């Protein structure tokens, strides 16, 4: 999952980048509204965290512009001004949730998780597909009720595919959303992850959860259980 963080306070931004990178997100950051807008236009993000009090372009205007340009990724507002006028204005301008400073990193992670899940159309923190169940809170996978160990990257790939069920996800899209820009984008590595995931999800090859669409990418192909 690729995140954009726009926060002008260097220390706080560094903390957020570190904590969220540690949590498995791919994180880009900007220190002012202008840079933030540029990045939002350049890259395809899964979610953004935007501080309201930003230099150059303030948070509200930044969010409005992002929305006007048709970007639909969820946005979490950070605000120090703990009043409802600002909160309502922020949510009205197109943000999806807010966190008041100071905050616990855990809270940010939980809110982000919920936003990402909601954006993909899931109401519960657990993504259920037939016998597969991925708990996005504890980051655990169970297959037919049995817990299955996943590496961090396997989890990331599976979560991304599950959050876009039925959609063809190209290898480029996957690398963009799962790796830092300076990461060596070797598509062979991805193929390895997919192969391992197939083995773990479907040991007896009855479900065939991940299709390979030739020349296009992968598709998670299990109907969601409501």
């Amino acid at each position: 999952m690729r995140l954009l963080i726009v926060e002008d306070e260097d220390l706080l931004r560094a903390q957020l980048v570190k904590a969220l990178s540690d949590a498995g997100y791919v994180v880009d950051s900007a220190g002012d509204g202008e840079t933030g807008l540029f990045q939002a236009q350049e890259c395809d993000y899964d979610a953004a965290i935007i501080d309201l009090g930003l230099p150059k372009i303030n948070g509200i205007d930044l969010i409005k512009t992002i929305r006007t340009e048709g970007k639909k990724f969820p946005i979490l507002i950070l605000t120090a001004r703990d009043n409802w006028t600002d909160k309502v204005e922020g949510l009205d301008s197109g943000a999806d949730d807010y966190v008041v400073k100071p905050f616990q990193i855990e809270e940010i992670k939980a809110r982000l998780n919920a936003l990402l899940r909601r954006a993909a159309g899931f109401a519960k923190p657990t993504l259920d597909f037939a016998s597969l169940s991925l708990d996005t809170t504890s980051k655990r996978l169970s297959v037919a009720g049995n817990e299955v160990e996943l590496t961090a990257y396997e989890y990331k790939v599976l979560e991304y595919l599950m959050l876009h069920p039925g959609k063809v996800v190209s290898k480029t899209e996957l690398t963009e959303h799962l790796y830092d820009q300076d990461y060596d984008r070797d598509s062979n590595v991805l193929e390895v992850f997919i192969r391992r995931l197939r083995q773990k999800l479907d040991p007896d090859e009855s479900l065939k959860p991940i299709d390979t669409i030739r020349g296009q990418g992968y598709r998670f192909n299990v109907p969601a259980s409501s």
Partner: protein
Amino acid sequence: MSPQVPESRYSLQTRLVLAFGILLILFLGLAGFVLDRAFKESVAAAVEERLQLQVYALLGVAEPDEEGFFLPDLQEARFAQINSGLYGFIVDAAGTEVWRSPSALDVNLEQANFMSQHVAPGQTMFGAMDSPVQGRLSYASYGTFWSALDQEYSFIVMESVEPTAAEIREFQSNLYLWFGGLALFLSIAQLTLLRWGMKPLQQLAMEVSSIEAGEKDQVEHEYPPELQAVSKNLNLLIKSERERQSRYRTTLGDLAHSLKTPLAVISGIVQQVRQKSGSVEQGDNVALQELDEQLERMNQIVSYQLKRATRSEQSRHLGTTVQAVPVVEKIISALGKVYLDKPVSLIKNLDAEAVFQGEESDLMELCGNLLDNAFKYCRSEIRVRVSKKGQGLQIDIEDDGQGIAEQDRQWVLKRGARGDTLKSGQGIGLAVAVDIVSAYKGEISVGTSELGGASIHVKL
């Protein structure tokens, strides 16, 4: 404290009407008195002159004979006609009547004591007497020395006062009529002029009260030069007051921002340290826990006191009203986004007429805190009612959550329960709501909803 200003009992208009009314009565009364007197004096003078002329006429025709006097050729016909109202007499120095005109045959002179009074030759004595038959008579008695008879005589002419009295009465009734008309005209003119002159003041007063009621932003009417200074300064005052308030709020917002960001950084550092808990000793972990708690407390105090500071100063709102329903709708739609994961059925009963007399941000803060609590603590149902109560506004919010325990209600509603005395995890929402309500001198009460949870009622 400013000294208590005694309240003026009389309006400007009443003062002017009273003053002018008293002046009018004094002026017309005095003028009437003077005119009446002058007229009476001039009439009296005319009577005396006439009597004197009649005396001279008698003198001119009087001829002495053995029995006294003989007046053969009386020019004035009224001397000849009985009871004509004009009577002539001649008396000698002893007061004995020596001649009377034919008109005076009937006149009884018993009351005429003045006849015996000596009048020096060449002098005239004027006066008035009552006669039983002829009524009141004015007289002139002229003393003369008749050398042929070698004796002093008094020539007396009497005239009935009735005609002159009638003349005076008529003058007086005319005078009353004119003065009455004049008083009426002046009173109407005065009221009209006063109303015209006072109109700008009344207009200004009306504008000020509609500003107070929040129907207007500023004084708009054009006023005469004397009031322009007032209206301009009033507008300036309103404007600068609003600017001051918004500047104050921005400053405090900035202060909040600059205090909270470092708090967020510290809190982040604490978490980073804790994550390396493998290398942290047990004691250090306790210290980190305490650090966290203190940070949380600092944060609560900063939030709460800043909220209070921005509010209590604004309790005196200067002429703003807000439609309540759009504000509530905005908050509900914002909260709907935040609590998207929670299936809440919301029953709204919103009266579009409901108006809040005060700052929009205060209403937003009040409703934001109360509705946020309702969303947070409800199980699945919330009821919101916004209604108009006379000039005021009533907001009722109910939920089906746990509710607020009976013993906590009084404590929770106590104004100024300080941020640092709040129980941890309680949040400052309700405390802030209580502060706003009391700043606007409203009422807030907590009860049990029929849905099972808390019901909060606010009257503003």
